[in-house]
Every structure is written in C-alpha cells, then in structure tokens.
C-alpha cells in the first residue's frame, strides 16, 4: 500500500523527467541554429588554438585523458554524425542519465536513510 501511494505521489515527477528527456535535443539544436559555440572555458584543444593562438602544453597533454563512450551526449563517432542521429543519442543519453543518476541516488539514499531504522 505504501509503495503504491508513494508511486502515485512521485508519478508526476517521473512523467516530468521523461518529458524533459524527450525535449532535451532542444539543448543540442538551438545552439546550432543560433550559431552559439562552446561554453566559456569548455573549448576543445583545436578551438583554443584558434582563440588563443596556441595550445597550452599541459592542456594538449591532458585534454584527452578520458575516452567517454558517448562524448557530449552524442554517438561515439562524435560531431560528424548526422544531426538526426545526434538527436537520437541525445535523447538516449537523457534516459541513461535518468536511470543511472536516479538509480545511484536512490540506492545511496536508501542505504543512508535505511540505517536509521
């Protein structure tokens, strides 16, 4: 009983998260349409070479320290993939984020709050 009541209380939030994930490609397409570049301080090495005139040595060495499986919420092939494919990966990233962040925080919260009883 308490579970179903809890579920009802939170159902609208879960729906809201799903809607946000489905709308998330706005965050991919709007900057493209309006020709907005990277966030300040988040340029790639090639970008910074253009902006500053050189690539700082430490930055060049460490920028690719980590190979993320879905870089920038896109396909592993990166920015050259067709825009529609990037949009699909963006939505997929959104749902992956809901599952992993929600699942991780839920487990952590249960573990911490559960110890009180």
């Amino acid at each position, binding site marked *: 009983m308490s579970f179903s009541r809890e579920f009802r209380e939170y159902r609208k939030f879960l729906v809201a998260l799903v809607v946000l994930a489905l709308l998330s490609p706005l965050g991919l397409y709007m900057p493209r349409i309006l020709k907005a570049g990277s966030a300040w301080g988040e340029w790639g090495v090639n970008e910074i070479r253009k902006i500053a005139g050189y690539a*700082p040595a430490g930055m060049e060495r460490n920028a690719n320290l980590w190979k993320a499986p879905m870089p920038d919420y896109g396909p592993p092939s990166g920015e050259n993939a067709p825009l529609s494919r990037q949009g699909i990966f963006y939505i997929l990233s959104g749902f992956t984020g809901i599952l992993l962040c929600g699942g991780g925080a839920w487990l952590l919260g249960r573990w911490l709050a559960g110890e009180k009883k």
Partner: protein
Amino acid sequence: MHIPDGYLGPPTYIAAYAICAPLWAVAARKIRRTLDARRVPLLAISAAFSFLVMMFNIPLPGATTGHAVGGVLIAIAVGPWGAFLSISIALVIQALLFGDGGITAIGANCLNIAFVMPFAGYFAYKIISRVAGISSGKWKAIAAGIAGWFGLNAAALATAVEFGIQPLLHTGADGRAFYAPYPLSVAIPAMMLEHLIVFGVVEGLVTGLVVRYLQQSRSAWMLTPAGEDTSE
C-alpha cells in the same frame, strides 16, 4: 561550467578533490541523521533532474552557450547536503559516460556546481525569507527565484576563479600558459556577465516557477525543510 581535463593544473584539481572528500563524508552523515525515508525518492529525482537540466544548452546567438542546474531548487527540496550528494552523482556520470567535465576536474566541478551553488542559494533563500519576513507563498517563490540566480552565479564565480588562477600558477618561461590561459581579469568578467544576465535569470525562473507549482500541488511538504539541521 563543467571544467574539462587539461584546464586545471594538478595543485588545483587535487586541492578540489581534497576539499570535496571530507564534505562528501559530512553530507553522508547529515543525510543519515536527517533524511526521512519519504524523501529518498526525491533524492533520486533530484539527481536525474539536474542531469537533464544541464543538457539544455542555452545559446547566446553567435557567441557561447550555458545552462541552468536546478541546484537551489534541489537544495530547498532535500536540503543543501542532499543537493550536494545528488548533484555530485549527476556530475560523476556526466564526466565518466559523456565526457562533460574532466575526470581530473570532478572534484572541482562538484565543489562549484554541487556544493557552492546549493549552499549559496539555500542560504540566500533563508536570508531573504527571514529579512523580508516573507510568509506568503508567492513571495517565497520569488525569493527562491532570486536565490536560484544567486546560487548559479556563485558557482560561476568559483569556476572563473579556478580558471583565472591557472596562468598565475603555471606559465612557462616563454610566457605561454600550461593550462587554462586566461587570467582572472578575463575569466571573471567573461563568466560572470553571461551568468548574471542570462543563465542565472533562466535558473531563477526555473527555480521560482517550480517552487510556485509545488506550493500549489499536493507535494507542498517537499518545501518544508528536511529536518531543520540539514542547513547547519
């Protein structure tokens, strides 16, 4: 605002990890003491919510992008320590899976986005509410909106300072920077202007509107503090 790998030198990113580690432990202890089981799902929703909000890149046409975080809203719902933990989870997943924020910079990003923002915003919300003697829901929502704006800007300032001290710490004999190349005099105005005028305003609107919605919904209990001492 997610600092990538290669922008901060080891002294800065190691210091940030060293500051975050005990804070995470304190947060776990606070949550253990004060979080009621009813709010556990809220912690999960908060982590997922901030992850998604950060995907909505807001363009400044022809220039750069930025995004909201939801950090102050989350701090109001689950307390600032709960916000610190849930947003930290989102930031770790963003770095590991999506390369948004560097691996070396996870400590710094958690410090700025998951700690500075919720705490600055949460205390701004408390102070505005108290000083203005606010009791009406509408004004509380407005106070929350202002606190959201303030919180995001506090995080932007912390980030700008971390960027800006890099040339001071690491510049070669040839005058070239090793890591982030822009000094404080460039980093702070560049980061603050866009956050004060645009991204912070979006954050404030999201915060105020969701608080207003929650006040009028059956979930208004979420806005009452999760055990007052979470704020200490």
